[in-house]
């Protein structure tokens, strides 16, 4: 409790983008999010293009299926081809030739989860350079600078990343440090365009954290530290608590959330944006997303199934191919992953569109299968 009094003077950050609410249904909102490169409709799902590409899809295909924002991983891009090179070549949009919106993360999470000997101090994240093993430091200020060189529409402030399974004073420490880091970003005259903040999952501390962040009037808020194996009950409760406390006119981004069911529930609770590697990763394992849940194309039963993956799906994969043909491709030919990734992302984009339009039309209703394994939409 003694930390609160040592907070620096709060600064206001100009919110350059707006969220315009177009419709509501209970706590769910359908909105328009205006970004420098694209005007988006929420709720929306953002595919993860870690290294400046979505695995196996071209930017024209992504546009075709209705993708609005792609996420790029700062850690990976800073490593190769480096943020300086991206900057020199006009930013990530130009580099990839992606005309719509981009979001980058702070790099902190990737470092902590991917690197040996990564550690967090008050200064920032210390780690061993994967290139030459030298000790390095990523400060909140530098994370912003790297992201600005990459040039995404939405960037994330570095947070003190804490595993969801940790309990005790470390949580509190992380929370207050995160707030101090945000203030450093704001005060340090980093040209912060749209800064988002991460929470952690610890319920009690969260209230203080959320209040602290809301006071700073940031352009948007991200709810993170979830999707790490905690049970569903806690997960939804945390999201509900956060969205209740966050301002209405700012977008709410739940990080790492990708199961269609989770997206629908979080949207019902008032969240707007999501990202996850799940749809594309599961495609590479031969699994397709369908309204009833998932379809494992590797199963022998698929070998003679002449139906499309999803008869209700309008994508080019479902319009042209049978389960049997995809079955003989998966895990053996790159084309199998490509076609499934295409279908799965098409499915997620359609889910986003359906969420938006059903909230706008006022008929948003979910039917959740009794074992929570699948969800379908019903429009009135």
């Amino acid at each position, binding site marked *: 409790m003694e930390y609160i009094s040592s907070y620096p003077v709060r600064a206001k950050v100009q919110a350059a983008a707006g969220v315009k609410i177009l419709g509501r249904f209970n706590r769910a909102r359908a909105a328009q999010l205006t970004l420098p490169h694209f005007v988006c409709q929420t709720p929306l799902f953002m595919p993860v293009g870690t*290294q*400046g*590409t*979505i*695995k*196996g*899809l*071209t*930017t*024209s*295909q992504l546009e*075709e299926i209705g993708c609005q924002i792609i996420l790029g991983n700062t850690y*990976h891009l800073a490593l*190769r*081809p480096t943020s300086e*090179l991206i900057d*020199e*070549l006009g930013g990530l949009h130009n*580099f*990839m*030739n992606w005309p719509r919106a981009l979001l980058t993360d702070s790099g902190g999470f990737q470092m902590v989860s991917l690197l040996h000997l990564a550690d967090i101090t008050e200064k920032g994240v210390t780690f061993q350079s994967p290139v030459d093993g030298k000790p390095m430091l990523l400060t909140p200020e530098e994370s912003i600078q790297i992201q600005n060189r990459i040039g995404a529409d939405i960037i994330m402030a570095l947070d003190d990343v804490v595993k969801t399974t940790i309990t005790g004073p470390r949580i509190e420490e992380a929370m207050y440090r995160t707030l101090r880091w945000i203030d450093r970003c704001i005060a340090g005259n980093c040209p912060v365009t749209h800064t988002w903040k991460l929470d952690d999952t610890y319920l009690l501390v969260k209230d203080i954290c959320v209040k602290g962040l809301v006071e700073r009037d940031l352009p948007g808020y991200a709810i993170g530290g979830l999707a790490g194996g905690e049970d569903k009950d806690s997960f939804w409760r945390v999201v509900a608590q956060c969205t209740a406390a966050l301002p209405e006119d700012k977008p709410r981004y739940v990080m790492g959330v990708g199961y269609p069911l989770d997206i629908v529930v979080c949207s019902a609770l008032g969240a707007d944006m999501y990202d996850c590697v799940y749809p594309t990763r599961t495609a590479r394992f031969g699994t397709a997303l369908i309204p009833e849940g998932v379809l494992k194309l590797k199963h022998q039963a698929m*070998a*003679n199934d*002449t139906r499309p993956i999803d008869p209700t799906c309008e994508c*080019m994969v479902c*319009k*042209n*191919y*049978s389960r*049997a*043909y995809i*079955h*003989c*491709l998966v895990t*053996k*030919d*790159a*084309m199998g*992953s*490509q*076609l499934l990734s*295409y279908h799965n992302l098409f499915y997620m984009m359609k889910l986003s569109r359906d969420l938006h339009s059903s909230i706008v039309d006022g008929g948003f209703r979910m039917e959740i299968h009794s074992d929570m394994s699948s969800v379908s939409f019903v429009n009135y």
Partner: protein
Amino acid sequence: MKFTVKAWSKGGGRAGLLQVGSCSIETPALLLNTRKGLPAFISPDLLSSLPTPDSRLLQFSPLHFSEGISLKTISELGGLHQMLGLHEHVFAAVPRDSTISLPDYQSSNKMGASFETPCGRLLIKPLQYMEMISSMKPNMWATLADEVPAWVSEKRNKASVDRTTGGAVFGSIVGGSKIEERKRCAKEVAERNVSGFCLGGFGLGESMDEHPSLLGAITEILPEDKPRQICGLGLPEEVLQGVAAGIDLFDSTYIYHLTLGGFALTFPLEEIRRHGYGDQLSDTGRDGSKINLKATIYRKDTSPILEGCKCYTCQNHTKAYINHLLNVHEMLAQILLEMYVPSFLPIAVALFPGLVILTRNSCHFSSHNTHHYLGFFRVIREAIKGGTFEEFRQNFVETRRDHILAAALSA
């Protein structure tokens, strides 16, 4: 199927028109390599961005479907065209495919032909092969090549088989590198009621110098009014050898192997000018006809693979981006390259010991290389029609040779 020769070149090459399925395809033409009917990396929606009708001619091997899907299911789906959603395309079946099913002539016997495939060694009997063809219903198919005497007994089946499958039959001509055997096989097959001929047994490690005499000996015997297809001639120089000998259709894995290696084809298609190459000789990985996009000189190169190229890759992406994709081993690099490239790894490695060829996936390449190689065939056809083929061929071969020598000397 209908084939007519439209123009002749002095040396024996010809330009023709092949009408098959719903397509009218000008020859000499390239058959695009596929795995299970689709290109390795170019998805079907992107396939339509390639020039038509050139890119509609697809090769496949029935052996690709030895496991994973039954013939019954393929028939239920209505055959290849339905199964692949490529109704406007022309499918040509060849029993062998250099990328995954190599013919194993040692084990072939009178019972059937043997192949090494990812499922192990398969012995395919002529009847089995016919079942595959019947369920897949390709527009054109090459007979199973094996000992001539065994096929004699199949003669009677051929006419009835034609009616069942509806596809045009191409008689396979084998015989290895022995001219006399080739001639004998060619004579035998030439007498049969086939719609065309498929020259097999090339691209199996024989030297390029052997080609002209072998090819010439075969084509001399074959009737002029039927199309000749060849498997295994991939390099541009080999294609030119084949064209000069009177071959009309080429099935090659050149693009596939180049794409895997991160190469992009760059030889100028409009005309080959020797002095035009001079200032590029010092580039690492350039031999005037292709570039290795993994090379660090391309890290910040914001130009397209080839200025003026109309393929999807060159219209949308830079060398810098593809360089990055290759370095981080992203599939998109190969998609983009295949759409734009064509394979001859052994020669490349021998001549450019400094080149590091990594076999990783990349999407973008595929698109560019295919586009470019289709363009190469277009230039060949124009040259034949314009009566300048021999000149074009000599020019091309000599220029490439100079480059290769210069690059080897400076390495």
